[in-house]
């Protein structure tokens, strides 16, 4: 049996930050991640981050991944298992991990779950045709593997991801036929939307994809207008000759492991779906289990790093190894509050107000 003080599941921005914070406090830490390189979704984020300098504002996601991975390598107290899958966590505080084709029992005194989020799919005729992609898959193809997903793309969803992927496609020489958005408003930042408009990509609000057509793969897409009840309006159909339909319709927290552990969950639409009840220190209803990043509610990379750091310090405090916890906690919280301030953070704030609860343990 492998023993560690802290096990962290997920080596994305949240998991890496949690591991680095805990190791800074002298906690022996094991990170388990199913990817081949550390960084999670950062490794495909070629755009520059916003926010404050402490969360690497102005730096591209791929470079943040390298920075965090570099810190990880320099920290002797962190062990990192790549291409390893957390299978389950048991009553006797054992995390079962699949690595190199074998199951390994890992005993830990505390656990941080930073499993991120998964893309949502959409229901429409033809949605199983080759050529219908999630936006994350398109980013992985282009930005990690250098492969163009197709020649002409219809983007579904005008949130930040939809807008950023559109721009990245254009940069890669792929044509973007249009961006359709079911809501009446563009959800993403104006700065991203403006870039697309300057390149004459139409953004059609109150529109959605009706059907994908094609034999072996996507050849065409039908888009139509939708009314206030999100019902399609017949007669408003528009046809687009495209070979890719890219769905950027939101993310759901990946919480399978938390559910399996038996952490108390709550459905919070503002946070993307089921998320664990936790206290302000990211501690779940199971006292040795902490949550960080999108698994605790869908936000973005900067807040993932901050909730990760907070969870890492909190886990260290739980293990009696973070004497300065209150100050560190306050510092993380201040930065998080700044990120979540203003109208764009309203949804997240509303979600957090119902899920951060003293029902969860206290450190």
């Amino acid at each position: 049996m492998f023993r560690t003080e802290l096990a962290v599941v997920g080596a994305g921005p949240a998991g890496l930050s949690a591991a680095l914070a805990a190791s800074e406090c002298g906690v022996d830490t094991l990170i388990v991640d199913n990817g081949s390189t550390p960084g999670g979704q950062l490794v495909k984020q070629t755009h520059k981050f916003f926010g404050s300098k402490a969360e690497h504002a102005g730096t591209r996601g791929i470079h943040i991944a390298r920075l965090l991975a570099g810190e990880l390598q320099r920290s002797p107290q962190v062990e990192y298992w790549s291409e390893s899958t957390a299978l389950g966590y048991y009553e006797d505080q054992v995390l079962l991990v699949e690595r190199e084709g074998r199951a390994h029992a890992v005993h830990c005194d505390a656990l941080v779950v930073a499993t991120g989020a998964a893309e949502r799919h959409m229901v429409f005729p033809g949605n199983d045709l080759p050529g219908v992609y999630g936006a994350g898959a398109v980013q992985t193809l282009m930005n990690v593997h250098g492969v163009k997903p197709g020649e002409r793309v219809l983007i579904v969803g005008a949130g930040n991801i939809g807008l950023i992927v559109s721009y990245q496609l254009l940069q890669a020489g792929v044509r973007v036929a249009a961006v359709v958005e079911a809501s009446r408003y563009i959800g993403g930042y104006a700065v991203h939307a403006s870039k697309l408009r300057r390149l004459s990509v139409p953004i059609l609000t109150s529109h959605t994809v009706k059907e994908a057509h094609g034999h072996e793969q996507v050849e065409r897409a039908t888009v139509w207008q939708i009314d206030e009840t999100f019902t399609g309006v017949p007669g408003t159909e528009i046809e687009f000759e495209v070979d890719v339909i890219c769905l950027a319709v939101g993310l759901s927290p990946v919480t399978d492991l938390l559910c399996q552990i038996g952490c108390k969950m709550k459905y919070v639409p503002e946070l993307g779906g089921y998320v664990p009840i936790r206290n302000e220190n990211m501690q779940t209803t199971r006292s040795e289990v902490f949550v960080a990043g999108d698994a605790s509610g869908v936000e973005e990379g900067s807040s993932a790093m901050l909730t990760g750091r907070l969870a890492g310090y909190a886990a260290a405090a739980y293990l009696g190894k973070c004497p300065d916890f209150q100050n560190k906690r306050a510092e993380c919280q201040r930065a998080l509050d700044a990120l979540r301030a203003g109208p764009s953070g309203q949804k997240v704030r509303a979600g957090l107000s119902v899920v951060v609860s003293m029902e969860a343990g206290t450190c």
Partner: protein
Amino acid sequence: MTRADVIIVGGGIMGCSIAYHLARRGMRRVVVLERSHIASGATGRCGAGVRMQWGTKPNCLVMKESIRILEGLEQELSYPHGIGFKQKGYLFLAHSKAQLIQFQKNVQLQNSLGIPSEIVSPKDMKRIAPLLDTTGVVGGSYCSKDGHCDPFHTTRAYALAATRLGATLLQYTELQSVTKSAEGTFKLTTSAGEIEAPVLVNAAGAWSGYVASMLGVNLPVYSERHQILVTEQVERVLDPMIISLHEGLYCQQTPDGSFIMGLGDPNEPKGLDQGHSWQFLFAVSKKISRLLPDITGVRILRQWSGLYNMSPDRQAVLGAVDDVPGLYVACGFSGHGFMMAPAVSESMADIILGNTPRVAIDVYGLDRFKNGNLFYEPAVV
């Protein structure tokens, strides 16, 4: 206060099938109380095997009848989705001479009751299950008419048929307390209000001892955790259910291609804990890799546990509770309730209505614990 003619506590296979038979026999207001959803207890967690190969006469007769019923159950219950009944056999492995002698006795008994089982050599076994590693196996017994049945579909088939006949199924309704009035009526307080009936059937599986205790009845049963796992679906390579009493292991490949396997472990906790352990995964993987080396690389999809409701002789406890008129019990199946339900439920309904059942079940009565007529079942994992 809602009035019923009979209230059945427990929406597993037993409760739902008893409800069906009572409704079919003309009982008007049949109510099934289920704390969660149907088949949420041991029924939906079991290994899904059905077999006639037993070591005691009553179990052989009950299971012979159950399998006969299962052969025509989809038609009987007009269930269009299929109950997944597939007769691909059960193969018991003997790892010692003594075990083989016991199997020979069992087969003799089974044959005398018209059950088409047979003693097989390791060579025969390789023919029946080519992937089986027979190292250390001296022989076994086999019955080609044993097999697999889907617990969810079967329970649902009974539940739907019962409700079509007028029975009421109250899911997500928890029994909170029960008292018996001077007039002999059971008054139940549930999470959905009060309900009363002159007849109460305790089919609460692992919780049957607890339900009985609400009426001051002490049933000689206890519950015990058993773990089980299911693998990913692969090409069909194994027909029969393989049972090794020596290893305490059972394994079958279901019609959809996934393997279901479990272990009898004497160290499992007694009580109502339905958790599970990683140690089980390691233990079962090790054992199955010896018996079926070719499936070593198949991935485990899911694990869970269920509760056996155990009786002192590992035999069901069925029939009237003499001290409390109107109270009936169907519990203590010791891990085999799902397969026994088709025949047992029919007999239970007949006993409740004062008819003579086609398959006698009086030997399973509670009185055996008073007069010492226990009859141990040797063929249990």
